[in-house]
């Protein structure tokens, strides 16, 4: 099914998130769930299962008026699916089994929330509404002994908070998945090393460079020097608007390492901002070969390598009619 309700997908997600048996135990411990709580929850099992439809209605009734939950509820099949899962959830909540099977169900529901992009605040509001509805049912049952009623409510609340913690983790994880994918894409795009003449490489750097990316630039450049037997490299930083001292030092190290491999690096296109900050940072620049722009850098490199580029002939004048 499109929204990942199959069990293998859930187990994969649980593994990615590091939800091991130890982690599940740890989560139970964090909310303070004890055998006494499970016993108390057992007393209200019939109460929740008997009113499960009303409780599901309370949850989704609350969401239906919220703008933040629209993506979830505007799709009919999706709505039915999450309502079914929520029903399962409520029944499972009072069964007293909070192991990996229970967590798997929660992750299934959470990943749907995550994929349609429901806001955590909307989810929290609805969950609070749900707990309130359960609380009302409990207090009605324990009218004679409100203290017992409250203790029971606290027990079910512990399970609820454990669920919230898990669902929020799933939501965050799904959101971060997008970030991770984009980082991967940036990484692939960011460090091309191009050969433009025999023994001459061009390394254009565009955008923000952080330490991580600088490291990638280093790796791909040094490998490319060896693979292409390069003698001169033109590193063009026209597209770099800012640079900090750590990154500048890293790039200098790259340039020195390239020299150890017998290649000369020419840096071109330092913007005035970058140049000023390099000087202000007091970075050792004596070993840096710089040329104003990319064209100048390529021309200088060609000169070093002994190329001479010439136009074949003067352009012919336009023919007279």
């Amino acid at each position, binding site marked *: 099914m499109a929204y990942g309700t199959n069990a293998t997908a859930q187990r994969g997600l649980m593994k990615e998130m590091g939800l091991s048996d130890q982690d599940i135990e740890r989560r139970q411990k964090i909310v303070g769930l004890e055998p006494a709580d499970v016993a108390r929850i057992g007393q209200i099992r019939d109460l929740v299962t008997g009113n499960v439809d009303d409780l599901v209605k309370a949850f989704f009734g609350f969401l239906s008026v919220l703008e933040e939950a629209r993506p979830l509820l505007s799709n009919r099949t999706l709505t039915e699916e999450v309502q079914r899962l929520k029903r399962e959830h409520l029944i499972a909540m009072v069964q007293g089994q909070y192991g990996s099977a229970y967590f798997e169900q929660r992750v299934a529901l959470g990943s749907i929330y995550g994929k349609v992009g429901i806001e955590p605040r909307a989810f929290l509001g609805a969950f609070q509404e749900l707990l309130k509805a359960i609380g009302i049912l409990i207090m009605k049952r324990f009218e004679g002994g409100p203290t017992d009623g409250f203790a029971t409510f606290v027990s079910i609340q512990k399970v609820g908070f454990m669920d919230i913690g898990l669902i929020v983790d799933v939501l965050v994880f799904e959101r971060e998945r997008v970030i991770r994918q984009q980082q991967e894409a940036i990484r692939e795009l960011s460090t091309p090393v191009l050969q433009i003449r025999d023994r001459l490489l061009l390394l254009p750097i565009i955008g923000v460079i952080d330490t991580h990316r600088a490291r990638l630039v280093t*790796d791909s450049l*040094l490998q490319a*020097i*060896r693979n292409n037997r390069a003698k001169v490299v033109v590193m063009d930083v026209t597209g770099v608007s800012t640079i900090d001292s750590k990154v500048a030092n890293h790039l200098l190290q*790259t340039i020195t*390492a390239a*020299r*150890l*491999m017998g290649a000369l690096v020419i840096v071109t296109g330092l913007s005035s901002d970058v140049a000023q900050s390099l000087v202000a940072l007091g970075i050792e620049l004596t070993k840096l070969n710089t040329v104003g722009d990319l064209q100048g850098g390529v021309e200088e490199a060609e000169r070093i390598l002994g190329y001479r580029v010439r136009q074949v002939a003067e352009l012919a004048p336009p023919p007279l009619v």
Partner: protein
Amino acid sequence: MTVPILKQGDVLIASIQAALSDRDLAALRDELADRVGRLRIRGVVVDVTALDVLDSFASRTIRGIAYITKLRGADTVVVGIQPEVAFAMVQLGLTLDGVTTALDLEEGLEALRSLRSRTDHLGAR
């Protein structure tokens, strides 16, 4: 393990084949210093392609070889530093300042040629 030193015309080629102890390195330095003068050598190539690590003693010794042979009348080129080795050396601050480096043996011999044409030019003046 001693390093084989090959003589090719007026060039010596020392190809380091395996990790060397400090004593072996010092022996290599002494041997090269001796032969450069004795055999009227003009250029030395030290090939470190096979090394996957160059520690501070090794880089200091190699730099020493370059300076000593220069004083004895020969240029030295270090060739074959691997990418990972190069970056590790830079991070340790071992930048072989003042030493000519080249990608491989072929490039190294080419570099020696161009260094020599420069010195010959100086001598002619």
